[in-house]
């Protein structure tokens, strides 16, 4: 789950990071008022979860309240990667001498939490990582221990910071690591961490992504979720324990397991069809969840056939069959239903379907072809 910059700034500031003050404005007037309070040059930024705000015209500098009003007028209401801008963040602009990248994330290759820092901040760190990996300082660390001060100092000196700045940097790095661990983050990032001409360090952006698996024990973070930034159907699915992503095709897919769900889409495409969605009902789905998944799929008006592809392991074929039958009862509209059902409790599942007149397939390839034919 991505957290809005305004919340990430607060979370970082609570842990001692030097975050400039800011206001959230929902109207040009509020933006002007905020600029007036701060005085001088301000930055007006679209509060969206999508990346690439700058290139999309979502970040503007403004000198004074009137300019801030105009900036907000220009930004509010635009769409950035499909997300409409409903709020802007207004903050005093900081003079920039140098821009540093500082991030904490998970290194899958080394199976460790890692701090990454680079003197080449302000631009896409992944480009730096790809082009000049040696320009990135790294500290792999044990989340139980955090980062030791000497490690943080060594990175600070390697970034070219002076003695006093290094002390500040150690505090910033430790604060960011604490935010990462205490918020169960998958990413905690300050880009850029600015060195102003007077030598001070400022965190002028803040990015925080939370591990979805940990939200259950972080109710205070779950509350930061912005449902409005999400597709309504996806939010509905999430509440039901289902992973659902709407796509542009016409063959709805209901699958158990993310890998098989992606493979199902690939196979549909392979046989000339277009998947309408990614949908993983999750492990151990019962009849209710299966039923809910089918209604979510059918709520998409583009869907002209549904391909149910279940290979039961921890999920049981009989539960799935019951869910399919229950959903069919209350189907808002009739579309062809191709069911492929195997695995745990397969015989019982197939029997339930057969009793209801549904002949299930055994082969994913054959079933995919049937689904593709159904929409031709």
């Amino acid at each position: 789950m991505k957290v809005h910059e305004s919340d990430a700034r607060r979370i970082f500031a609570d842990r001692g990071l030097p975050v400039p003050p800011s206001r959230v404005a929902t109207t040009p007037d509020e933006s002007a008022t905020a600029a007036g309070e701060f005085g001088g040059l301000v930055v007006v930024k679209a509060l969206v979860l999508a990346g690439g705000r700058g290139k999309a015209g979502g970040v503007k500098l403004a000198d004074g309240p009137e300019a801030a009003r105009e900036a907000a007028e220009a930004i509010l209401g635009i769409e950035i990667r499909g997300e409409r801008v409903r709020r802007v963040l207004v903050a005093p602009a900081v003079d920039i001498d140098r821009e540093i990248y500082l991030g904490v994330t998970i290194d899958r290759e080394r199976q460790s939490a890692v701090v990454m820092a680079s003197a080449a901040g302000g631009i896409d760190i992944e480009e730096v990582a790809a082009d000049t990996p040696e320009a990135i300082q790294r500290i792999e660390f044990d989340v139980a221990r955090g980062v030791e001060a000497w490690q943080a100092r060594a990175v600070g000196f390697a970034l070219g910071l002076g003695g006093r700045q290094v002390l500040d940097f150690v505090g910033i790095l430790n604060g960011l690591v604490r935010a990462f661990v205490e918020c169960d983050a998958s990413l905690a990032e300050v880009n850029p961490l600015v060195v102003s001409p007077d030598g001070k360090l400022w965190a002028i952006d803040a990015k925080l992504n939370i591990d979805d698996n940990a939200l259950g024990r972080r109710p205070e973070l779950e509350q930061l979720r912005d449902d409005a930034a999400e597709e309504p159907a996806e939010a509905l699915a999430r509440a039901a324990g289902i992973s659902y992503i709407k796509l542009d095709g016409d063959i709805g897919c209901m699958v158990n397991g993310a890998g098989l769900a992606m493979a199902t889409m690939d196979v549909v495409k392979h046989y000339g069809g277009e998947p309408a969605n990614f949908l993983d009902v999750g492990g151990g789905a019962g009849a209710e969840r299966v039923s809910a998944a089918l209604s979510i799929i059918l709520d998409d008006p583009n869907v002209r056939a549904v391909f149910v592809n279940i290979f039961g392991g921890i999920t049981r074929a009989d539960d799935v069959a019951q869910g399919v039958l229950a959903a069919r009862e209350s189907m808002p509209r009739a579309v062809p239903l191709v069911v492929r059902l195997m695995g745990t409790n397969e015989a019982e599942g197939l029997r339930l379907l057969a009793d209801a007149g549904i002949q299930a397939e055994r082969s994913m390839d054959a079933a995919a072809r049937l689904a593709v034919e159904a929409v031709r």
Partner: protein
Amino acid sequence: MSILLDASARVVVQGITGRQGTFHAQRMAEAGTAVVAGVTPGRAGAAVDGLPGVPVFNTMAEAVSDTGANAACIFVPPPFAADAILEDIAAGLELIVCITEGIPTIDMLRVMPVLRASSSRLIGPNCPGIAVPGANVKVGIMPWEIHAPGRVGVVSRSGTLTYEVVQHLTDSGLGQSAAVGIGGDPIIGTRFTDVLELYEQDDQTDGIVLLGEIGGGDEEQAARFISERVTKPVSAFIAGKTAPPERRMGHAGAIVSGSEGTAAGKETALREAGVCVGDTPREAVDLLAAQLR
């Protein structure tokens, strides 16, 4: 000998008194696995439905000392699963299979230093487990009836996709020397390269099917390993070719970001390592079958 698991495994099911724990303990026992005990804190002495004579203990230490168990299969809920792994490591189990899906990543990061300093082997979490058809033993949740003894090793990040390929291998008469689901989470105990090395050294395995998916760099790492260390034929399928970039596909691991982690990149890396890459799971099996004939 087979990899990771053979008939000497004496398995404790953690969370045995839960619905999934009981159900899959029964299925494991039916497959031939020696399910010797269960652990559910506070339920010591409880009876397990359908498994008379399988004692339930409060702690893994008791289960090990009373039954000589050497392996565990974890079904406990996500908030408590990392702790179960740590308990197993401390109890000295050789093999720990963690089925639980949805463990917070930070919990797994806390486990890793302890795991590395131990001699325990962890499979998973968020995985279907291991099946060895030739030895009549499985530790996990995969449907047993789709397996058949054979000489192809399967290794996969995805659960149900593994079943798909196992079924094809069985249908095509190749069977499996073993099938290992390593799990789809960012932090896992055993990786492609670990299992590839085991298959390479296993004299019951003639060829390998690798099932990857978008996100992360594990398949690229596996490709490097294969080109340097694996002499047996390998075929692969990468799920997620049709997934839109930068969208999360359910698995914590399946995030396409930047230049790394795309299906195309993974397929290219594998092909350059001499791996036959199928467009569908079935094609991956057929490509391997052609090489083995």
